[in-house]
C-alpha cells in the first residue's frame, strides 16, 4: 500500500521510457524504506521468530528444547480439541461478519441520509464504542447477560416463558459481544464509500422513475460495494483473531484458537505449541482472505465495473 502511493504520485507521467527505467526503482524504494524497515522490524521479524519457535520442542523441566521438527503440527492435526476450536472460530467469525454487514450497511445509509447536524452526532454515537476499551464493553455485556442480569430481569417482568435464560458463557453471548465491537468498522468503511457517492446519480435514478428500493439496490449498493466488502473482510479477520471478548463472554469451555494460543503461552508454558497454533491461525486467516478477494471481492467489483 505504502509502496504504491509514492510511485503513483511521483513517477513523472511525461518521462521517456529510458528515464523512467532509471528513476522508477530507487525513488519509490527509498521513499518506502522507512515503512519497510518499520514493518520488517516490528512485524516480519517477530512473525519469523514465532514461526521458528513453532518447530521446536518443549519439556517442562528443561523448557524449550531446540531443534527442527513438525511434531507440534502433527499433534495439532490429531487434536480434536484444536479442530473444535478452529471450527468454532471460523463459524463465529462468519456469523459475526454477516450480522455486521446486515446491520452496518443500512446503519451507514440511514446516517448518510440524515440532516447534517444529526449526521455528526449519530456518527459519534456509532463510533463512540470504539473509544471505550473492549474489556470495559465486554464487562457491560456480562452485567446485562447474567442469569440475574438486566435482560433476564426484564424478560421475567414481562412474563416471557422460559425466562431466565442462560446466556452468559454461550456462543450467543460471544457473537453478540463481537458484533457490538465490530459494527462500527463496517459503518465507517461504508461511510467512506458513501462520501464518494455522487448525489447526482441518485437524482438521475429518481428522474428515470426508479423506486427508493431499486435506487438503493441498483445504484447505491454497487457504488458502496468496495466499502462493504472491505469492511466485511476487516470484521472477519478481527473476529477470527479476537481474544478478549471470547475469553470473557464464552468462558474457558468455549475455546477459540486465540484463547488456545494464550493458554499454551501463559499457562502451560508450552511456547512452541502455542506458536504452532498461532501460525496455523495466521495461515487460516490469510487463506480465507485470499479466497475472499479472489472468489468474492474481485468478481463482484469487476461485475460492477469498479476494478
Amino acid at each position: 500500500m505504502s509502496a504504491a502511493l509514492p510511485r503513483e504520485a511521483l513517477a513523472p507521467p511525461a518521462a521517456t521510457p529510458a528515464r523512467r527505467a532509471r528513476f522508477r526503482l530507487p525513488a519509490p524504494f527509498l521513499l518506502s524504506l522507512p515503512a519497510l524497515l518499520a514493518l520488517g522490524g516490528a512485524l516480519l521479524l517477530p512473525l519469523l521468530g514465532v514461526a521458528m519457535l513453532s518447530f521446536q520442542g518443549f519439556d517442562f523441566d528443561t523448557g524449550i528444547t531446540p531443534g527442527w521438527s513438525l511434531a507440534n503440527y502433527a499433534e495439532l492435526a490429531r487434536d480434536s480439541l484444536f479442530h473444535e476450536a478452529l471450527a468454532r472460530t471460523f463459524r463465529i467469525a462468519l456469523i459475526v461478519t454477516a450480522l455486521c454487514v446486515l446491520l452496518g450497511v443500512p446503519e451507514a445509509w440511514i446516517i448518510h441520509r440524515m440532516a447534517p447536524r444529526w449526521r455528526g452526532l449519530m456518527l459519534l454515537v456509532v463510533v463512540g464504542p470504539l473509544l471505550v476499551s473492549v474489556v470495559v464493553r465486554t464487562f457491560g455485556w456480562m452485567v446485562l447477560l447474567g442469569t440475574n442480569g438486566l435482560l433476564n430481569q426484564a424478560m421475567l417482568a414481562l412474563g416471557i416463558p422460559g425466562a431466565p435464560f442462560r446466556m452468559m458463557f454461550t456462543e450467543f453471548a460471544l457473537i453478540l459481544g463481537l458484533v457490538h465491537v465490530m459494527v462500527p468498522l463496517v459503518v465507517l468503511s461504508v461511510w467512506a464509500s458513501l462520501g464518494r457517492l455522487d448525489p447526482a446519480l441518485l437524482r438521475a435514478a429518481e428522474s428515470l422513475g426508479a423506486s427508493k428500493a431499486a435506487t438503493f439496490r441498483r445504484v447505491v449498493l454497487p457504488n458502496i460495494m468496495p466499502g462493504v466488502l472491505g469492511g466485511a473482510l476487516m470484521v472477519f479477520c478481527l473476529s477470527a483473531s479476537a481474544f478478549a471478548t471470547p475469553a470473557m463472554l464464552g468462558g474457558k469451555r468455549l475455546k477459540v484458537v486465540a484463547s488456545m494460543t494464550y493458554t499454551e503461552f501463559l499457562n502451560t508454558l508450552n511456547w512452541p505449541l502455542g506458536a504452532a497454533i498461532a501460525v496455523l491461525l495466521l495461515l487460516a486467516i490469510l487463506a480465507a482472505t485470499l479466497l475472499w478477494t479472489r472468489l468474492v471481492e474481485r468478481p463482484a467489483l469487476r461485475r460492477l465495473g469498479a476494478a
Partner: protein
Amino acid sequence: MKRLLLAATSMLALATGQAMAQQRLVVAAYGGSYEKVMREQVIPPFERANNVRVDYLTGNSTDTLAKVQAQKGNQQIGVIVVDDGPMFQAIGLGFCQKVTDRAAVDALYPIAVLGDGAALGTGFGYTGLAYNEKLFRERNLPVPTSWNDLTRADLKGRISIPGIDNTYGVHTVAMMARINGGSEREPGPGFRAMREKVNPNVLAYESSPGKMSEMFTSGEIWMAVWGSSRARAMQVAGFPMGFVAPKEGGVALMTATCAVEGNPAPELAQKFVAHLVSPDVQAAFSKEYGSGPTNRNTQLPPEVAQHVIYGEEQVKTLIGLDWSVINPARQEWTRRWQREVER
C-alpha cells in the same frame, strides 16, 4: 528570577540524586485482596527501611511462572510469590536462589521450608467449598459437607471451579480421584467423576479471583471450590460467605516466595523474602487476608487466630498432596482436563 532558576536547578539536582540512589525491586505476586495487603501494609515499610522502590506485578501462579520463564537469562523480577505446587516447579527449573538469611529460615515451621531452603512458605490456607450462606438459607439448601456436594442436582449450573491452570483446579481433580478410588498417581477416576458428574453442574471454570467474587456477589453462582483466604477476604468485605473443609479433608495450600536466580538486585530480593516471613508481615496477612502464619514466632490475637490455620498441629489436619507426582504429570493433567472435563 536568577535565584528562582538556581533554586529550581538545585531542587532538580537533589531529586535526580535521590532517584539515582534509589534502587528498584520488582515483586510478582497475586492480585485481588492479596495485592491490597501488599501495597498497603507490606511494601511501604520495606521501601522506607531500605530506600528502595518496589514495583508490583500482578498475576496468578502460572502467569508469574510464565513471566520468569520468559525472562530467563535476563531476569527483571526480583521476588515471586506463587502457590506451593508451582513453586516446586520453579525450584525444579532453577529459578530460585537459595535463601541466605538463616535466621529467617530457622524461624519457620519445617514444612514451610521448601526445596532445602530455596523457597519459603509465607502463609497457610486450604482449599474447600465456599458457598453463599444467605442463598442457601433462603432456599433451604443443605450446607455442603463433602467434595461430593459438587455433584448435587440442586446446584446444577450454580457452581464454579477454578481451571486447571490454578492450584484449586488441581486440588479438585486430586480430591475427586482420591474419593473415587484413585490417587495423584492414578487420577483417572477423578477425571471420570469430573466429566460425568461434576461438569454438568458447573456454570463456568473461572480462575480469576476477581471474576469469582463478581459471580458470587451477582448471585450467578451459589457455590465454588475456593481457598480459605479468598473466602475470608469476602467475609471481611461483608459478603455472607460460608466456607467448609469437606469431611474428606480440606487440601493444604501454601503460598510461597523466593528470590529469583540472576535478578538485578539480589541483596534486596533476599531482604524482601525475609521481610515476607517476618512476624509482623505474617500477622498482617493473617488479619487481612486470612492466611495462617508460617513463622512460629507470630503472635495472633484470638479473634484473628480462630479464622486461620494456626500452628503446625492444625496444618497436620489438612491433606497434603504429593507434588512430586503431580508436577511431572501436570502437562498431562492439563491436557486431560481441557479435553475431558472443560467442554
